[in-house]
C-alpha cells in the first residue's frame, strides 16, 4: 500500500481548485497547495490578516515584515492584490465569500465535524486563531491530512474526541490513502490510492464507508 507524499497530496487538492476561486490555505501543509495551482492562472489567495492576491515567498533581500501571511511568514502581493482590515477580512470568511478553505486536522468526523485547534490535553495552553472562523465560513471546507495519526489511529472518525472547531463544516477530506466526501449520511470514498481497497479503508477507519456513486 502506497501513501501519497505531502507534495503529491497538495498537487491532488490543487486539481480541484478552479481558476478564479477565492481560496484560503491554512497554516502548515495546505500552504504547499499554492505551488501546484496551474501556472499563469488567476487564483485569489486570501490571508486572514488582511490580504487578497497573495504571491509566493520573496527572496531574502525583498522580505518586508509588514507583508506576512497568517503563519507570520513573509509573502508577496500580486498585481491586483489588495489590503484590508481584520473586520473586512473575517467578513469575507464568515459571510461566505471564500470559495474554498483547506485546513489540516487532528480529527474529522464522517459527518464533517472538525477538530483541529486543541489536542484536549488538560495542560495545553489553548490558542485558536482563525481556525473556527475558517471552518464555518467558506463555501467549501477541505481537509488535507494523513489518514492515520503517528500512532496509527484513524483521524477520520465516527465522532471527534478532540475539542471541536466546527460542526458539520468539512465537505471533503484529501488523505494520503483516499479522498472522502462527507455529509449527513456519512463518508463516501471518491478516490483511492493504488493498492488501497474499500475493505482496507473500512478496517483502518472502523467506519461503514461507502463508495461514491
Amino acid at each position, binding site marked *: 500500500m502506497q501513501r501519497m507524499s505531502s507534495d503529491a497530496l497538495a498537487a491532488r487538492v490543487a486539481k480541484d481548485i478552479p481558476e478564479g476561486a477565492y481560496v484560503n490555505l491554512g497554516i502548515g501543509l495546505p500552504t504547499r497547495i499554492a505551488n501546484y495551482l496551474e501556472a499563469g492562472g*488567476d487564483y*485569489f489567495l486570501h490571508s486572514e490578516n488582511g490580504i487578497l492576491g497573495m504571491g509566493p515567498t520573496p527572496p531574502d533581500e525583498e522580505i518586508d515584515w509588514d507583508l506576512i501571511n497568517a503563519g507570520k511568514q513573509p509573502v508577496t502581493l500580486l498585481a*491586483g492584490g489588495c489590503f484590508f482590515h481584520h473586520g473586512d477580512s473575517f*467578513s469575507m470568511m464568515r*459571510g461566505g465569500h471564500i470559495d474554498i478553505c483547506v485546513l489540516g486536522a487532528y480529527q474529522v468526523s464522517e459527518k464533517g465535524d472538525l477538530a483541529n485547534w486543541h489536542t484536549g490535553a488538560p495542560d495545553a495552553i489553548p490558542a485558536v486563531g482563525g481556525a473556527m472562523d475558517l471552518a464555518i465560513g467558506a463555501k467549501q471546507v477541505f481537509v488535507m491530512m494523513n489518514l492515520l495519526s503517528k500512532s496509527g489511529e484513524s483521524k477520520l472518525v465516527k465522532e471527534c474526541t478532540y475539542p471541536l472547531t466546527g460542526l458539520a463544516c468539512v465537505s471533503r477530506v484529501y488523505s494520503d490513502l483516499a479522498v472522502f466526501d462527507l455529509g449527513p449520511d456519512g463518508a463516501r470514498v471518491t478516490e483511492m490510492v493504488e493498492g488501497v481497497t474499500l475493505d482496507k479503508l473500512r478496517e483502518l477507519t472502523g467506519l461503514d464507508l461507502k463508495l461514491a456513486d
Partner: protein
Amino acid sequence: MIDKSVPTLKEAVADLFDGAAIMIGGFGEAGVPAELIDAVVDHGAGDLTIISNNAGTGDVGIAALIKANKVRKIVASYPRMAGSIYFEERYRAGELELELVPQGNMACRIQAAGSGLGAVFTPTGYGTMLAEGKETREIDGKHYVLEYPIHADFALIKAYKSDRWGNLTYRKAARNFGPIMAMAGKKTIVQVEEIDPLGTIDPEVVVTPGIFVDRVVCVPHKTKAAA
C-alpha cells in the same frame, strides 16, 4: 485569466429574474447606478424587491421601475423625495409594499448580511413605531432592538475605477452604500467610469476588494448640467 468585465449593460444584468431582491446603491443621485437601473427596466424582470435608500424621482431610475409596475416591495429609509410621484401613487394605491428602515439600521443590516451575522442588537429605533413588534433587550442599562440581515440576490452599484479582478475605488460621497451592498449581494454588478489594467490601482487604496464583485461594466462619465 479572470476578467470580470462584461461589454454591455444588457449582459451585466442578463441573469436577473422575477421575484429577485435587488440592492441599489446611491444616496440622492450620488452613486446611483443609473445606467444599470435602465438595463433592469429593459430586462423586464418583475415582482422585484428593491433595497435602496431612496425610491427615485421623476421618470428615471427606480421611479422608472415603479412606473413600469416591476416593483412589489421597497426597503428604504427615505422613499419620499420631491418628485417621487410614481412611488407615492403606487404606495397610496396599496400596490407597493414599503418597509421603512432607519438609515443606520439599513446600513448595519446590510453589513450583517455581508458579514454572515445572524442578527444584531441595535439601539436605533428603540421605543419608536419602527420597532413595534420587534424583540428588544436591555444590555448594560441600554435598550436595543434585534434586527436581522437584509440579503439580496443582486447588488447594483456605481463605482469610479475598477480592474479586471473587480477591485473598486469610488468618487467622493458617491461611495455611500456601494461598499457595503457589494458585500451583501449574492451577485454584485458594478458600473464604473474606467476599467484600468491590473496592478494600476494601488493595493492600499482599493475600497472594495474584487472578492465582493462579480461583474463590471464600463459606463463613461457624462458631464451633468448643474441642477
